[in-house]
């Protein structure tokens, strides 16, 4: 079963974190190791990190179908910072991976305990309908 793990941690107008260099490096190394471990366990389908929200645009179709773009608004709460799609045996395993990601080290090496939204990907084969 496939699950998406969404890290909804970015805020509008948030720039790069100004942590001490050692802490930043520890954080980056942690995320790299997580991706590597998921590849090695044969569970990683896809992982991507997203740009900062200042690059985000809200797009709607105008009257003629042409795109009308808008900036995102500072009051919009959290933005997707990145996501993993994993293919795992159980939901519990997906939660365990999310918990590991959540505890990525922040300033001073303390776990960030970020909220990670976990949802099943609709990938089950359809059954015969009556």
């Amino acid at each position, binding site marked *: 079963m496939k699950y998406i793990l969404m890290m909804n941690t970015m805020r509008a107008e948030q720039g790069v974190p100004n942590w001490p260099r050692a802490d930043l490096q520890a954080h980056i190394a942690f995320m790299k190791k997580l991706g590597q471990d998921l590849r090695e366990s*044969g569970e*990683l389908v896809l992982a991507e990190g997203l740009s900062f929200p200042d690059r985000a645009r809200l797009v709607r179709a105008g009257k003629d179908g042409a795109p009308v773009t808008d900036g995102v608004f500072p009051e919009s709460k959290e933005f997707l910072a990145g996501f993993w799609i994993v*293919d795992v045996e159980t939901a519990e395993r997906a939660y365990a991976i999310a918990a590991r990601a959540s505890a990525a080290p922040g300033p001073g090496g303390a776990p960030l305990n970020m909220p990670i939204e976990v949802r099943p990907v609709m990938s089950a084969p*359809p059954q015969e*309908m*009556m």
Partner: protein
Amino acid sequence: MSKPWDAASERLLRQLAPQALGVVARRFRDFASAEDAVQEAMLAAFTQWPVEGIPENPRGWLIQVASRRMTDQVRSEIARRQRETAAARDVETVEAAGEIEIETDMDPDDTLILLFLCCHPALTSSSAIALTLRAVGGLTTAEIARAFLVPEATMAQRISRAKQSIKASGVPFRLLSWQERAERLPAVLHALYLIFNEGYASSSGASLQRLDLAHEAIRLTRSAKALLPDNAEVAGLLALMLLTDARRAGRTGPDEELIPLNKQNRTLWDRAEIAEGIELLTAALSQGSVGLYQLQAAVAAVHDEAARAEDTDWPQILALYELLKRVSPSPMATLNHAIATAMVHGAERGLELLKTLDSDARLTERHRLDAVRAHLLEMLGDRENAIKHYRTAAERTMSIPERNYLMTQASRLEESPRSLDGKTTDLG
């Protein structure tokens, strides 16, 4: 240079994979590395044979190429460790043996040994399936990865870890005793069944690039049947696959929407597959040891034999599900039994039986219960509740085509004109 390369050549090559693997694994006493070596030999064959023609002795060719990889690997290992002469002499012996024994150490049971090894109880079902497709099915990692929509590197890791687990469990590469085989067969059949079931998802047009897992499962089960000719359940599983696959062309509409059994265009069903399935099933049932797969195949046969949906022999299906509930009780058996009961004795009786499943924690696919309940409520004419349950089922399913189907059922019912007795005219 012999025959041109075609689908039959490809089938031949895949069939030879487990035979070559058996020889190499036994000769080098290392299943995991031998499996990698044979995969490399397969990849080489897939590039060379279509161009240069199929070699005189194709199996010998695969064995030789794989053995050479193994020897190279051993040699580089030795170089790396800077070992002394004793080990190097081993390599020479192995290599010399390899040249002579190609044909003599072939064991017809190798494919069977591999099948049981790959469906080892220590493995999760997804690893067992992946390893079976590669080691027994002769498929490439890339093909398997595409079939399951995961990156090739991920699939390669999954297969390699599966082999590590087998190694760690310490099972020898040998034919299991009759009793061990009997104990382990259900796991093997279940793995084959899961491969077939996954084929439902891969048969849609959006994934034309994907391997046809249903056909791969049928191919593997055919070889299992050939190797275990006296086992009625293996035959039953093969019959079930054929009798189900026969309906494939009628199962989805032009936009890949699901079409329920009673609405399918039955002229699209594959008569040859139905005939073969029924023949297999008849022979299996005459052996006297009825089981889960034979009974499910029997139900599929009853559906396949009805020229129109209304000709379906529901009393017979009901009898089969009653037997299935006794032979192999499960929530899914109860669910199907309830459907058959509704068709024979009325929706109310069917709904009554469904109640026993409400508190059954073993039923993992709750949406199936909601969908069946919705259908039976619709039969009963309870439109409001039918709509409600179709929507609950749509919310709970993990399949997009199912969700589309169930949502459409709910809105069809909302929009359908009510007849005087409250029943809707359009069942389906």
